[in-house]
């Protein structure tokens, strides 16, 4: 899947400029103090500045593709703040329309997707962004397993009902939740027909460990008590050009993920990239509860010619050992 890594952020150059401005002012202060101290000090200050000018510089590529030179000692690691995360988190990744295809004929309920997701998002074993369900439409139709992430609907009922714009739809199709905004009314949970959302009824399991971390709206980490959490299509991974956690973790090739605009999806297990429309057409792809008009961005391929036997009644109740 041709995911491009984003080079840098707009704010990067701003920060660099800002910091050099600050340094300049500092130096003016030093020079000022030195002039009061006397000529010798002025001289040494002059020498100091001169020495600095000769110092190493480094070439840096700015966001608008300009190569600039700055002193090496002024280079700082770029750490985006909450505002940056929130702004870019709401905008999404330009030009993309993320889409997921789940091949039900391949799922054997390994639950690796669930575990990888819970690990990445610091969730308890019974807190789900993605859950695998044992399904059967009727007595005569086959049983099958169905991984169920958020469907990232194009007409999301959850977003409509949110009173504070905490949950929103991005231009790249992802529905996210900003835990710094959510008031915890749970109207979105009531509205979601896919039961895709979870709520932090208690202190999240990793609160202590995450307490120094910057909140990332594209990861929902640190998780926040009293707010909603949900599947993010691993928006943080997509920003880095990687496949979502669940997609990469699947050992059975269940998940395809990609960009609808490019009409290409990549299988998380085999890393094979295929034509999206053809994949759906050939296999009779469908969307969950299409009749509700929610227009999900997750497609399912029917559990036809299942590659794995449906092992006796699935254990559908959560147990501590899982």
């Amino acid at each position, binding site marked *: 899947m041709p995911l491009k890594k984003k080079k840098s952020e707009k704010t990067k150059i701003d920060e660099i400029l800002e910091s050099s401005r600050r340094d300049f002012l500092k130096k003016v202060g030093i020079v000022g103090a030195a002039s009061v101290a006397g000529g010798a000090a002025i001289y040494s200050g002059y020498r100091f500045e001169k020495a600095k000018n000769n110092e190493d510089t480094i070439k840096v590529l700015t966001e608008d593709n300009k190569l600039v030179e700055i002193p090496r000692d002024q280079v700082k690691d770029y750490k985006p703040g909450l505002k940056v995360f929130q702004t870019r988190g709401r905008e999404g990744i330009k030009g993309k329309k993320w889409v997921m295809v789940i091949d039900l004929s391949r799922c054997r309920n390994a639950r690796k997707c669930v575990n990888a997701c819970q690990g990445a998002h610091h969730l308890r074993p019974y807190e789900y962004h993605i859950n695998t369900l044992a399904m059967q439409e009727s007595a005569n139709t086959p049983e099958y397993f169905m991984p169920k992430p958020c469907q990232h609907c194009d007409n999301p009922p959850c977003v409509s009902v949110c009173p504070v714009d905490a949950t929103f739809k991005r231009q790249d199709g992802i529905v996210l939740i900003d835990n710094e905004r959510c008031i915890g009314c749970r109207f979105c949970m009531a509205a979601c027909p896919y039961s895709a959302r979870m709520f932090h009824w208690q202190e999240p399991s990793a609160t202590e460990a995450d307490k120094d971390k910057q909140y990332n709206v594209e990861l929902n980490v640190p998780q926040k008590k009293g707010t909603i959490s949900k599947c993010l299509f691993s928006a943080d991974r997509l920003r880095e050009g990687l496949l979502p956690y669940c997609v990469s973790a699947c050992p059975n090739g269940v998940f395809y993920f990609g960009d609808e605009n490019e009409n290409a999806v990549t299988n998380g297990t085999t890393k094979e990239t295929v034509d999206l429309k053809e994949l759906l057409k050939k296999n009779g792809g469908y969307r*969950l509860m299409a009749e509700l008009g929610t227009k999900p961005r997750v497609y399912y391929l029917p559990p036809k010619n299942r590659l794995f036997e449906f092992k006796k009644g699935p254990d559908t*109740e959560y147990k501590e050992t899982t």
Partner: protein
Amino acid sequence: MRDTMTGQLLNSGLYKKKVDLVSSDILKNVGISKGFIIWMAFLAIAFGACIFAYTIQLRKGLGVTGLRDITSWGMYIANFVFFVATSLVGMLISCVLGLAGANWIKPIGRIAEIIAVAFAAVAGLVIISDMGRPDRLTYLFIFGRVQSPILWDVSVVTTYFVLSLLLWFLPMIPDLAISKSRLTDQPGFLKKAYDLLSFKWVHHEAQYKILSQAVRILLILVIPTAFAIHTVTSWLFAVTPRAGWDSTIFGPYFVSGAFVSGTAAVIIAMYFFRETYNLRKYLTSDHFEKMGRVLILVSVLYMYFNLNEFLVPGYKLKALDAIHLKELFSGKYAALFWGVQLFGLVIPVLLMLFRSIRKPLPMMLISIIMLAAAWLKRFIIVVPPQAHPFLPVQNFPAEWIIYKPTLIESLVTVASMLLVLIIITVLSKLFPVMPIWELAADETEKETKKM
């Protein structure tokens, strides 16, 4: 409310005598008494204890309630719906009956407004107890989005509360002037309050005219607002696709149900004031007889909407509706469902058809049962539809799947009820509970006609 208070009437000796008479009956209950202090102390202590439960919730999160991902709205939301519902009665009595010219509601109107004010005020507060992040309440105003029915609900409940407060207060201004001159043995702050709130009322013909016009406008404005508050509250559910909530008649279904619980609440309050305030002369047996008829009317209306709400999906039995209705009709909620429908609606209506039942005491008893049933009905509306979402509920701990309200949750709910009682007590004990000037004027007119 009375349209005209002519100067002739206001200055007649008979009217003044009647004001003396009525105010001695009404005002003898007004003011701070030993009973009031003991009762308020009791309410305050109980309220404080329940608020302690809420502080636990604040500290530990909503996990101290029985709510979980499957059933994420429970007792708090049911209680909220019940409060909004009950507050609607202010509109029914003062506006619908009042504007239609029903003269007998005069001694009841203010009681109905007290109920409306108390329940609407607390409805606004109880919703906060259901929030995961009550500290972010202001976000509703900073980041509010008009698409969300929650915003509509907040706006209309606030508007209704303000309108009801004005409808309680404005017609009371002449009474406050009367109280000011007569309740001279009350503590200073109360006398000051009467003085301040009566706005130098001098009982002039022109003042009464302005007052009557103002109240008339309010009475008309509050009708759409009242319909809006409960219709919008019903939409919190009806805008979702869930079986049991996905209904086009939820608006009228809720509004008609609201009239039932509100009327029942007013009847209970009437009985209480009649007995403890010794107001049998004003709240006569005939008033209970008439309120009984009102209650029959609104109950039959509500039964009609119940029939629509349950029979039509029950006939079609669409997959998820079938599961939901089976739970109600013969499943886990069957006892509650049929109990509420029979004892809270059908049997009371049948009983009230007998004139001998439409007497104060039996009416009060029936109203208590109907009010309790109304609360439980809201629970049935809110909770069961969440137990069966579209996709199967799997891989959750057992206690996450079935909703059982906890003690803390119940105490916080009790706190809201205590707060309603506190507001009702203050409004009905420190201020005249009936319109003295109106009753006196009506009496005067009646007697002059006789002569």
